[in-house]
């Protein structure tokens, strides 16, 4: 296998992996403030792409307007999901909350299917131009957008957690919700913020990837599952680990399809997930402290 092929696998892997990473980031944010796994996370990704497509198709909006609009709409939906389904369930066992998020994901997916139909759609790339040759591999301009926006999100998050009161409060919630509320942090608000944030990064992931990979009402399931695997890989609750986990899974999938078997490519993320659960449940970058009974 020539080096250029290897490079190509890395390039494609990083592009797709960035979306897994953004999805994983969404899982992590909500897990940190609520302790639950939000199975509707993949649907935020789907909605990001679909709403952008349809604001162009039905609303006649140009791409630079449609994209931020779609991300904003999904963010608002994230808040709605929290207010309507999660907040009324406060104090209920985690099992119930997990089931509720599964229900919400079905509702969002079903709603998208009924409103937008079952067809697949394409979003135009953010910037025109042919593929850029790169040491024998080729790189789509959109890939640069994907990686750039992912990095920007990471930087913005770092600043948010380190420099703002809300960010610090969220970290406090992540450490100990009870203590945080005793210290006068409004946990409810923090949960809502985390849902908004997760929806936002999810929608961003969906909208930047849609020009490369197309979108449809049901793309959220697989993206959600893989994002979830990425989030465990990075250590549940660790935002930077989540993005790193996504990139690792993306690259491994691409290499796996290239060198092993393209048929089992989708299994790679989940084999990693199982191996981690068996061998190192705290994830690659987590604190090694998964409680044993």
């Amino acid at each position, binding site marked *: 296998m020539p080096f250029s092929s290897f490079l190509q696998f890395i*390039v494609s*892997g990083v592009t797709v992996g960035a979306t897994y990473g953004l999805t994983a980031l969404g899982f992590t944010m909500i897990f940190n403030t609520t302790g639950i796994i939000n199975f509707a996370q993949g649907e935020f990704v789907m909605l990001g792409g679909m709403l952008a497509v349809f604001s162009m198709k039905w609303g006649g909006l140009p791409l630079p307007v449609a994209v931020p609009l779609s991300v904003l709409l999904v963010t608002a939906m994230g808040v709605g999901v929290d207010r309507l389904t999660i907040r009324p369930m406060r104090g209920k066992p985690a099992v119930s909350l997990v089931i509720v998020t599964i229900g919400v994901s079905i509702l969002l997916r079903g709603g998208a299917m009924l409103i937008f139909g079952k067809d697949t759609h*394409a979003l135009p790339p953010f910037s025109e131009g042919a593929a850029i040759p790169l040491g024998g591999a080729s790189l789509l301009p959109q890939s640069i957008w994907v990686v750039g926006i992912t990095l920007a999100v990471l930087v913005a998050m770092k600043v948010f957690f380190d420099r703002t009161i809300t960010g610090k409060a969220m970290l406090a919630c992540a450490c100990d919700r009870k203590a945080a509320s005793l210290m006068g942090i409004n946990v409810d608000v923090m949960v809502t913020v985390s849902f908004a944030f997760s929806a936002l990064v999810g929608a961003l992931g969906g909208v930047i990837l849609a020009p490369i*990979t*197309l979108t449809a009402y049901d793309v959220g399931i697989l993206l959600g599952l893989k994002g979830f695997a990425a989030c465990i890989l990075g250590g549940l609750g660790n935002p930077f680990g989540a993005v790193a986990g996504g990139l690792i899974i993306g690259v491994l999938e691409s290499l796996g399809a290239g060198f092993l078997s*393209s048929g089992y490519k989708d299994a790679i993320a989940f084999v990693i997930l199982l191996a981690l659960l068996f061998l190192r449940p705290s994830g690659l970058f987590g604190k090694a402290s998964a409680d044993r009974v």
Partner: protein
Amino acid sequence: MEGMKLFSAALLGGALLLGGGAFAAEPIRIGAIFSVTGPAAFLGEPERNTAKMLEDEINKGGGLLGRKIEVVVYDDESDPTKAVTAVDRLIKKDKVVAIIGPSTTGSTLAIAPKVEEGKVPLVSCAAAIDIVSPVRRFVFKTPQSDVLAVKQIYRHAKKNGISKVAILTASDAFGSAGRKELKELAEKSGVAVVADEVFGPKDTDMNAQLTKIKGTAAQAIVCWGTNPGPAVIARNRKQLGISMPLYMSHGVASNKFIELAGKENAEGILLPAGRLIVDEQVAEKHPQKKLLTKYAKEYEARFKTPVSSFGGYAFDALSLVAQAIKSGKSAEPAAIRDSLEKTKGFWATTGEFTFTPSDHNGLTEDAFVMVRITKGGWEMLK
């Protein structure tokens, strides 16, 4: 008192309704099972739409044997289990005289024993050859078998001096059926399969597979799948600057594919397709010409989405059943079956059907034409 009056009025009304029903001829009930939702919805939705459209049209034209028809559609949600319960309901409760669909091979094979047992003819809209081979007494199908499509591709490739191909198939029922035929027919057609890659039907990136293929001796790529996978492949191929010819299956023969892949990425792709997609280029005097133009126009006007060959399968299935009822002058299941088997030279959207006791698909290779995508449109090759 008031209640009593109301009651007797209701009783009277009910009696009138019942009586009325008994006097007018009962509609002929035809069952349909389509995967309207679930992963196979891309098949089931156009099929359901088409069946409903054709039902209206037949009724507007006075129905069959002086009776209206009623198409009872159930959604199997792409799940064979649901198809099994639906077929029981169609046969035992709705008492249908024939069934069209299901959309998928799995559902068809799952219900085949049931229709055989219930002695109701089934005209499936699923592609696999296993449905009619070996022949089941009551089971027919309308789509061209993959064998025919594969033969067309290999013949075209051979003619253009291609002897080594890479195959890239979807890991779903459609793709794996194609993969099987592509591998089996290769040697006989004088073509060698030098790379055998697959992709998940929901995969978003095929660069890895294509990069791998690029490194082999393949002279052409044959891709087998339904949207969106092949569209992603068309895009990735362009991105990687792969210049060898790309063949697709009839599974993408709809304008939707060009839209998804993007005009410039779809340029030059070759595929076998039913004439439906190139209806305007079909010679005026071709027996399918009028039929195809009318179906395509009406479908697109009514449902506001591009017509696909999948809807055509349901069109053909219902037309075949209607034709069998007319020619056999009976709407009894057994009579319909016998009459179906005698179908000869019946032109429908997919091709010319001639059923025999040993052939329940009844199409020839002529059902397909080779088509090239040119400037965002379809060009029929001679």
